[in-house]
């Protein structure tokens, strides 16, 4: 049986939910006839028809507002932002309306906003950003970013069934670079649960998205040097699995907080706060943050490589922290 790519896993997950629930529909720019910029919705128009696979004008705020209205009126929209970078055009609708509906008037918004995020694809400043933090900072939203094909399928299905708005960040570099054998029977992956991607005992790397694989590669190289590294894949940023974060922190006592997003205001700071507050007495070294520098995402190959956290960088910090 062939392996399933990350992008195909998401497509299958959406497809299965659309088969299962007639209120689920997809809406966005170029999603129907064209099948989406990354082909996540390929074939859906033929199967589900134009009422459930909807091409829209180029209008992110309009799309999010329409999705929210449809959710209020009994549907379960899956909205595609062509690139996560452009989700900012719908920021007001997401943060001022969709996120606040339940708190303001008890209204569920069962809506998924899918957004291809992340770099390492030579996309430059407008097609490579990691935009999670403004949404992580908005009460009322859930924020998810899978690192594997298995999780991508299970989490998109869970997101579609969730009764709160979910920002579903898909890593563009992972779309076709990771694949695995998926179960043939339906499954979901719960939102809000981290997963130990790799077990270890000396150092914990807490991360998510593509960086799970970067951490894993560094951990493999460290193992050859006798350093046992645990990699915790958060999978969900909101609600954050604090239990899993503190468990790995208390287990290894040496922590690296790794993300592809830029350093200042990134999730690493929040994780450091949680660990500092609740596991301070367990720490045997400083909390180490590895992140992209505080710049826009550059285009040129040499610059982008310098910008993105690498397994070399992670290995170097791992060695340093191990010896600390």
């Amino acid at each position: 049986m062939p392996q399933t790519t990350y992008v195909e896993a998401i497509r299958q997950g959406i497809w299965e939910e659309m088969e299962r629930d007639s209120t689920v529909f997809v809406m966005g720019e170029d999603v129907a006839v064209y099948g989406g910029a990354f082909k996540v919705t390929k074939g859906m128009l033929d199967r589900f028809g134009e009422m459930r696979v909807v091409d829209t004008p180029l209008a992110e705020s309009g799309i999010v507002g329409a999705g929210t209205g449809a959710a209020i009126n009994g549907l379960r929209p899956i909205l595609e932002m062509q690139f996560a970078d452009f989700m900012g055009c719908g920021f007001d609708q997401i943060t001022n309306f969709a996120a606040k509906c339940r708190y303001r008037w008890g209204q569920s918004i069962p809506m998924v906003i899918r957004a291809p995020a992340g770099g390492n694809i030579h996309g430059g400043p407008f097609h490579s950003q990691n935009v999670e933090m403004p949404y992580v900072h908005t009460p009322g939203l859930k924020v998810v970013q899978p690192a594997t094909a298995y999780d991508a399928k299970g989490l998109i299905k869970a997101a579609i069934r969730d009764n709160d708005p979910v920002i579903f960040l898909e890593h563009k570099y992972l779309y076709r670079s990771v694949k695995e054998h998926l179960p043939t029977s339906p499954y979901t992956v719960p939102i809000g649960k981290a997963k130990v991607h790799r077990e270890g005992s000396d150092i914990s790397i807490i991360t998510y998205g593509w960086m799970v694989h970067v951490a894993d590669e560094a951990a493999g190289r460290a193992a050859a040097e006798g350093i046992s590294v645990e990699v915790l894949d958060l999978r969900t940023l909101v609600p954050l699995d604090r239990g899993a974060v503190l468990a790995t922190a208390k287990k290894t006592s040496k922590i690296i907080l790794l993300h592809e997003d830029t350093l200042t205001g990134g999730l690493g700071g929040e994780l450091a706060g949680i660990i500092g507050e609740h596991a301070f007495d367990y720490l045997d070294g400083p909390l180490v943050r590895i992140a992209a520098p505080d710049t826009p995402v550059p285009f040129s190959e040499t610059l982008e490589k310098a910008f993105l956290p690498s397994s070399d960088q992670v290995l170097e910090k791992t060695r340093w922290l191990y010896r600390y």
Partner: protein
Amino acid sequence: MSASATAPLRATFDRPLCDRLLYYMVLMRELEDRIESKLYRQGKVLGGCYTGRGQEAIPVGSAILSRARDWLTPSHRDMGALLIRGITPREILAQYMGRATGLTKGRDGNMHMGCARRHCVPIISSIGASIPVATGLAFAMRYRDESNVVFNYSGDGASSRGDWHEGINIAAVMRLPIVFLCNNNHYAYSTPLDKQMRIADIAVRVKAYGIPAEIVDGNDVFAVHTATQRAVEHARSGKGPYFIECKTFRMSGHSAHDAADYVPRGLREEWSKKDPILMLQKYMVEHAGADEQDFVDLRQRVLDEISEAVEWALNQPYPDPATVEDGVYEVR
């Protein structure tokens, strides 16, 4: 005075309908007046305080045509629409006072209220943001092949927002069943229309998107009602959205704290001669067999209803501080 208000009584504007329209317009006028002139100044209502004084004909003349399964997205000068949908003065006052029994349970204030059961989406304070939301509500109606429509309310200021243009365009492209009611009251806070746009009519903008748009005297409840009827028939029969620009004037400041000194002297006096309630009453005397005593009695009945509701609301509990974190996410 517009033509329709002096025209002979037509069957659709019989006495019972006139009475209903007048009741909701007077209730809106007096309830807002009690909130702004009394409760706000007495410190019993905190926060912002917006009224639709002088604009009552727009929400009342249109929302009276809504059916139970239609959806409404009223703006902050459309209290009459909420009243017509069955939201009570008690609930509105408890909302203004931040009480636990208000429509948002103290989560939000003043006119920022709605109710899913009665198909009213609460105001989104980013003006114009309700337009895309209306397209989604309408899309779901089409999805289920219903003949319901959305009544969307906004003002002149909203038509400068990107959301307005995105939403109007989506509604046009997808031919969605939406009746857009625009209250062009000539001021967005302190900004007059000529600083908002280089044209006089918002309808011109709308027509460019391929949506039928008409301009009516927003102070003439029959004109609003008649146009809305046309619009609703258009939308219900699958012909897509319809836009009604209601020319009116904001007879108050932007909110209770605003004396509106920026409004040229005399302009408000001029518009006060076109008071929508007085216009309706004049019509009712001339064509529907009403007399002044009927209006005195109605006003008294409304004032009594409001007084009772104020007493009730003042005795409602505040939300329990321990619940401050509740309701952000679904609890399963």
